């Protein structure tokens, strides 16, 4: 999805080496982040080294998108809380991811919470969708940093509990 704040979210969080220009040329930019150790279950701890593929918005049928998703351990799917239509397109995106990476885990992020605090309807909509699809979600702000690292921790925990990487 375009303009939901994925790139800003990643930039808040990672080790960057490449220009964002790659996003508009080949549609993806890879960066890396080593998370501090987190608790992944009762008495269990793990450390995660994320190789993050920030994927630009694609046409639904683009073969490139699937190529980039193949082999992924998880996806943090980001919606823009100021644009309800981005929440409506979440199911299609998640389906696409699950087809390309059947073992991959999914967590949701509702971004731009710093601006969306005054529109509880969209927040409620995301909450409902997350509950129906049994997916963990967090409200994030790339601008203030709120819940950015936490949302990646949530995804890491999902991956650990599924027995993945």
């Amino acid at each position: 999805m375009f303009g939901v704040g994925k790139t800003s979210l990643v930039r808040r969080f990672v080790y960057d080496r490449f220009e964002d220009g790659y996003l508009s040329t080949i549609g993806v930019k890879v960066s890396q982040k080593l998370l501090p150790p987190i608790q992944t279950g009762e008495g269990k701890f793990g450390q995660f080294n994320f190789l993050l593929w920030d994927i630009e918005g694609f046409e639904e049928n683009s073969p490139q998108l699937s190529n980039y998703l193949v082999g992924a351990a998880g996806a943090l799917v980001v919606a823009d809380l100021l644009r309800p239509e981005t929440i409506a397109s979440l199911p299609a995106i998640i389906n696409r991811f699950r087809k390309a990476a059947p073992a991959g885990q999914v967590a949701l992020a509702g971004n731009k919470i710093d601006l969306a605090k005054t529109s509880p309807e969209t927040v409620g909509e995301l909450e409902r969708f997350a509950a129906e699809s049994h997916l963990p979600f967090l409200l994030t702000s790339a601008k203030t940093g709120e819940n950015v690292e936490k949302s990646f921790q949530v995804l890491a925990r999902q991956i650990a509990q599924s027995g993945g990487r």
Partner: protein
Amino acid sequence: MSDAKRNHQDVDPLEQLKSILLTEDQSRVKELEQKIEELQTRLSRKEQLIATLEPVLGELLDRKIKHSKDEMAAALSPVMGAAIKRQIRDAKDDVVDALYPILGQMVARSVAEAMKKLVANINASLNRTFSFDLWKKRIQARALGVDAGEVILAGAAPFELQRLFLIAKESGLLMAYISNPPDQQSDSDAQVIGGMLTAIKSFVESAFAGGAKGTLEEIQHSDRAIRIDPGLHTYLAAVYAGIPPAGFDEMLKACHQEIHKRFHRRLREYQGDNSRLRGVEKPLHKLLKQVLKV
């Protein structure tokens, strides 16, 4: 006493004498004062000063440059860089138009220089026609099944294998990395490069395949290249400079096959845990040594 007589007595005779003797001088002084004032005005008013200097300025610079070239260069050089930059910024098209005719010549000259060096290197090799070195190269060429000239050419543009990346095919995760000479590249750098390389490879393969299944085998940039050997679960990327020796692709493939042979199960089940791949660098180091020998 009459009035006329009194007046006559009032006029100081000395003053009278002065007036008779100095009238001419006084008028000259006045005239000079006027001229000085006029000059002062010319110098202090910008417009008038410019009007005065303009007719001679060109000639003045011309003469100054002729007589003291070094001095002028020293005075102007600090502002030249800034002036050129500004000119490029303000009148880019004019600058391009002006440079275009000479750029081709510059490039041609630079290529000619590089070729000259290459020819000189080859000649130096050929001049040792009967030297032990050339005989060694001829035997080497025969053993590799290539022309002796090819071996000499490879020697003139030395080959350097700089980095090897072993990367998980689907996820783009970096399984092993070595460099020659060992570099300061951080682990993060190598990992991100491995990921980006996978993304670029995937992009090229899907965007230009046109329905056909194929793999990206080489990326070239200036004098460096990345040769990619695709495997079942991984791909091996070699970054090098110069002309690769004959048989380099086979060496790369053999190294990759050895890795697959020794680690095939762990490669297939790889989930990102590099501690399970201990020893995978060994064949990579072996390849590096093998290439250095050639």
